[in-house]
């Protein structure tokens, strides 16, 4: 078993809104292991970003604890927390909104060094900034450019460089590629992968795009309205979906292939309001298997198979139905993407070159 780096215990965040208390994150428990990527998926507003922020203490939890390296960081004073701050960083969804438009690339990347007084002279800092830019594949000539002059992919690289500046061990990736085009998205995903290997990083990867999450994650958490409904190894989750919501979610994912027939499970209702929810299964309103118990009691998250957790009263009974609903979707007779080898003789550019984009000279 890998070493646990970070743990959320009964982590809870309620927001005060006009209608009452909005249960953004409601008593969630999970662990993140050293060196792994934990994926977090769920529909818009289910509390993914809030969870990420709570882990980094960018938001103060309503209750519950975050344990980092065995230390309960929620209880630390701001001063004591400082040294943990440098170990945990975040990369945001919108690379434009997350960069101060009035600061140049160099200034943005330098800021964490400056604030945390990592170096005490400007020359060292400048050297480190160049180094970081190099690491994420930003050409040195972009040093004094402003974010608005750059494209989304490069902007996101700045965000990554800033996060790396403090040599963190853990990075929350809050939908870091959802604002990017597919081709750029692939560049960034590859870059993150390389960085993880190079610096032994631990990731929490938040996304609503299941294919992306699947691609990057070792384990996946599925959230629904502030609670975890299912949690498992990535492959395990895709092969054995236990929660009706996960089933629907995975079945609804459009597959870019004409050879895989998917039959999406169409959920009836809409997502219900997270404000003052009742003690009931939060998915009950949209669930095809709903029974009386679902309306009376909120199901606990329990480990149904080793390492595979689910919060559904009737998870056991549903296992069989799964294969019927998404019949045959897991086998792929042909390779889904045809290699254009008949036409194009030579292989395209090497992976590394692609990943590092055009201006990179990252060490291989």
């Amino acid at each position, binding site marked *: 078993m890998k070493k646990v780096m970070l743990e959320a215990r009964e982590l809870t965040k309620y927001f005060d809104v006009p209608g009452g208390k909005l249960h953004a994150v409601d008593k969630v428990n999970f662990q993140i292991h050293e060196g792994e990527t934990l994926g977090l998926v769920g*529909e*818009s507003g289910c509390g993914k970003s809030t969870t990420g922020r709570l882990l980094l203490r960018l938001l103060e939890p309503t209750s519950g604890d975050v344990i980092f390296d065995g230390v309960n960081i929620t209880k630390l004073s701001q001063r004591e927390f400082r040294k943990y701050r440098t170990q945990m960083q975040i990369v945001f969804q919108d690379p434009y909104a997350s960069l101060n438009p009035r600061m140049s690339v160099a200034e943005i990347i330098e800021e964490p060094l400056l604030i945390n007084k990592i170096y005490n002279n400007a020359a060292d800092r400048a050297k480190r900034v160049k180094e970081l830019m190099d690491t994420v594949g930003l050409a040195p000539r972009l040093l004094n450019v402003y974010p608005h002059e750059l*494209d989304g*992919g490069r902007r996101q690289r700045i965000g990554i460089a800033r996060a790396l500046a403090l040599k963190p061990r853990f990075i929350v990736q809050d939908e870091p590629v959802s604002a990017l*085009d*597919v*081709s*750029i*998205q*692939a560049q960034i*995903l*590859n870059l993150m*992968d390389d960085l993880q290997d190079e610096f032994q990083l631990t990731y929490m990867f938040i996304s*609503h795009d*299941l*294919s*992306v999450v*699947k*691609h990057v994650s070792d384990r996946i958490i599925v959230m629904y309205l502030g609670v975890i409904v299912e949690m498992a190894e990535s*492959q395990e989750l*895709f092969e054995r979906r236990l929660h009706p919501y996960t089933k*629907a*979610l*995975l*079945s*609804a*994912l*459009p*597959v*870019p*292939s*004409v*050879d*895989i027939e*998917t039959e*999406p*499970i*169409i*959920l009836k209702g*809409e*997502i219900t309001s997270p404000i003052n929810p009742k003690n009931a299964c939060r998915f009950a309103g949209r669930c095809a298997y709903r029974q009386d118990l679902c309306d009376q009691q909120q199901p606990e998250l329990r480990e149904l198979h080793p390492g595979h957790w689910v919060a559904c009263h009737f998870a056991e009974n549903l296992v069989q139905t799964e294969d019927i609903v998404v019949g045959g*979707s897991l086998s*792929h007779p042909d*390779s*889904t*993407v*045809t290699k*254009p080898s*008949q*036409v*194009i003789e*030579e292989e*395209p*550019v090497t*992976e590394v*070159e*692609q*990943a590092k*984009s*055009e201006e990179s000279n990252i060490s291989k």
Partner: protein
Amino acid sequence: MTKKPLLEIKNLHVHYITNEGTVQAINDLNLELYPGETLGLVGETGAGKTTTALAMMRLVPNPPGKIVSGEVLYKGKNLVEMKEADLRKIRGNQISMIFQDPMTSLNPIMTVGDQIREGIMLHQKVDKATATKRAMDMLEVVGIPMERYDEYPHQFSGGMKQRVVIAISLSCNPEILIADEPTTALDVTIQAQVLQLMENLKVEFDTSMLMITHDLGVVAKVCDHVAIMYAGTVIEHAQKHKLYRTPKHPYTIGLFESIPNVHETTERLKPIIGLMPDPTDLPTGCTFHPRCPHAMDICKVEFPEVTHLSDEHWVRCHLYPADKEVE
């Protein structure tokens, strides 16, 4: 081919004239849409998908937009040169459109019912009561109880709003439905609902559809034909299965390799190198050549013509010389 296209775009050029320069949003674009078919229009941000759709209804905002040349033939009539009044009889009646973001495409201060009724009143010679009735029916058709006729868009969830937009666009039973990324703003489960609904309605109303998206998964799900757009023009156009199984254009191939696939465990993705070109300063020759792994000298100087590879598959790429029919 004996089937005549319902709508045909020929050599269309659309420019946006801005302070920063002239954006060549559409360059020599050709496209056909046949009766009853669903055509997927795929491309990255800024490829010109929305502009194409707007040009089809002559709704390109002017200024700054301008249809520079080309034709949009609807049943043989050129919409580009049609009188505004005649055009209005077509818009919303024979050709209608669903926009990307349901949150902003509904008027926030009008009830959803009235917004559906508006189109009906405009195009069908019925009195108010009948129109209201029809609007209510349309609501039911898209799965919203008609009691909610008098509610306002903000009282609806995103999926329901998109369904209202669909109801508006289908209310006059159009022959062509243009859907501009109709589900991009929605969650996957809701997207599935909406796509299902659209599909059912398409069959029920026998509508031809242009489905604009950047999601190849969605295309695989709902389209019959696919057109891949790059920098303002369609670079590959094929029947869906042909395109997915044997993509020809290097860009199309690159696109497929960039996307992670849930059903395959790929260690690394293979991104297309580089970025979309600056639309105010397009590369000479084939606009894709700077990023193309197979770029040849000719690619830098000459814009490739359409090459018909097979019956329902054409491509614009110098790798496939115009004369040499492959299949």
